[in-house]
């Protein structure tokens, strides 16, 4: 490892050793694809993926310089920003497809559920993977848009992987899931009631790659090269869905059938700033920033 986030180890040939903290899910397929295609090597970056189960492991790793870059959803990044965690986004991560009913995340119910629309979720038990994060804020927006009062939704925390079982066993009335759990729920006969990302904002930017403020300041060149490589990867992934489905098999254990069926997200290179503002507004409404207002401009590159 390196000390203090100064752009990783640089070996004799001027190649930077870069560690990226990622969550091994569909969203990060482009970086794996880009690595395969040599987009990083071309820019003298030797990439190692370190997979963690979410922000708890990745953000401290980036802040302390154990990882040079990390991947996180925007709501978490906004929360971090309000707490003055010294980080800065460097590239877009993943975005919603923007198509109602055809997004990579959705609120699902059982086929025979009395819940028909998002408004029916009021007073029901809905699972999200993490409370007070992007899941519940956007689902609340879906409910709001459908004319319901989002105050009375009973959110509970269930990991995505366990959500299909929880729904099936009747432990929750509805689940918010993303791929590949979404396909699993569909296969089990689940019915979609809302595309919460689409409801929240058109073409919502969901997640981003980020680095520590320190590295951003000290090694602008590395950050620039990394951003370029990521952007190339994103574009390539967006244009080659079959290759994306292929690369998923290399770092996840999603079976082939599901890989063929699942809905892929969008991977634009630009962060949709308005959508981030929307997320900040939604989060503020739901009180997840402890009363603070995130400074979006400071977070974005």
């Amino acid at each position, binding site marked *: 490892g390196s000390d203090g986030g100064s752009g990783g180890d640089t070996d004799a040939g001027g190649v930077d050793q870069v560690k990226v903290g990622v969550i091994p899910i569909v969203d990060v397929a482009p970086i794996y694809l880009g690595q395969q295609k040599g987009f990083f090597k071309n820019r003298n970056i030797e990439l190692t993926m370190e*997979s963690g189960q979410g922000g*708890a*492991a990745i953000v401290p790793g980036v802040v*302390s310089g154990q990882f040079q870059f990390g991947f996180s959803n925007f709501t978490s990044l906004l929360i971090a920003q309000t707490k003055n965690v010294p980080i800065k986004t460097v590239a877009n991560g993943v975005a919603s497809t923007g198509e109602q009913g055809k997004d990579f995340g959705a609120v699902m119910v059982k086929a025979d559920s009395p819940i028909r629309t998002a408004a029916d979720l009021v007073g029901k038990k809905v699972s999200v993977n993490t409370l007070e994060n992007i899941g519940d804020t956007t689902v609340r927006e879906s409910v709001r848009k459908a004319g319901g009062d989002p105050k009375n939704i009973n959110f509970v925390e269930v990991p995505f992987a366990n959500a299909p*079982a929880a729904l099936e066993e009747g432990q929750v009335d509805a689940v918010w899931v993303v791929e590949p759990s979404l396909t699993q729920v569909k296969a089990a006969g689940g019915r979609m009631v809302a595309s919460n990302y689409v409801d929240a904002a058109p073409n919502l930017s969901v997640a981003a790659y980020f680095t520590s403020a320190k590295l951003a300041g000290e090694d602008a060149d590395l950050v620039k090269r990394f951003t370029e490589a990521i952007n190339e990867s994103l574009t390539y992934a967006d244009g080659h869905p079959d290759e994306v489905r292929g690369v998923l098999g290399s770092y*996840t*254990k*999603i079976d082939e059938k599901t890989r063929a069926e699942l809905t892929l997200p969008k991977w634009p290179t630009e962060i949709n700033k308005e959508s981030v503002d929307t997320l900040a507004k939604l989060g503020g409404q739901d009180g997840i920033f402890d009363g603070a207002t995130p400074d979006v401009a400071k977070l974005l590159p």
Partner: protein
Amino acid sequence: MTRGAGLLGVAGLAGLLVLVEALPRLGLVNDDYLPPTSRIAAALGDELVTGEFWRAVGDTLTGWAIGLLIAVAAGVVVGILIGAVPVLRAATASTIEFLRPIPSVALIPLAVLLYGTDLGSTLLLVVYAAFWQVLVQVLYGVADVDPIADETARSFRFGPWARVRHVLWPTALPYVFTGVRLAASVALVLAVTAELVIGAPGLGKSIAVAQTSGAVPLMYALIAVTGLLGVGINLAARMFERRSLAWHQSVRGEVPA
């Protein structure tokens, strides 16, 4: 006897396998979420031939073994020192009680901060959790010294070291064994959990990947591997214990009179 016991143990495990096969087959649980043994076994079979799997097992066992070794050595030394010196015991009791219930998982940010996803992170969590197991057992073991045995040693003017070596240690040994067996599985649990959450390479990471990928049979197969590692570790500990505790009441009883 030993062979009979071995057979019974296998029978017990076989019973578990049959139960897991039967539960989904009888429709008592949805087989999407708890697949029958046969499907789990098939997934395991596919996995066994990959080098990736064995690397993961190797990584987990490395973290486990090193962490356990450090924890046991530290636990025994500190435990005997504190247990044998009443002043130390009184002075450290509250601190020990304060530190012990702090969950290793709460230390994850700290671990990542210090070591990233390297072995160091796993070790920190493993050692922190397993150390207390050994320590507490040693403390109780040291307190169990028969006063007459201790007086005998004192009357023959055994030095402090000789008393530890010849009286305290043999008395505490059965407690230490229990402590080591507890620590061994806690260490395994923590090694896997650390990999699971931090993403350090190993079985835990494989489980996490299988879990997020919805590969349920594979996930159970990997969990089963973890469990079997535990069974193996315990078997080894038991064998070692039988050998070194031949004098102890609990082992004496094994030989039918």
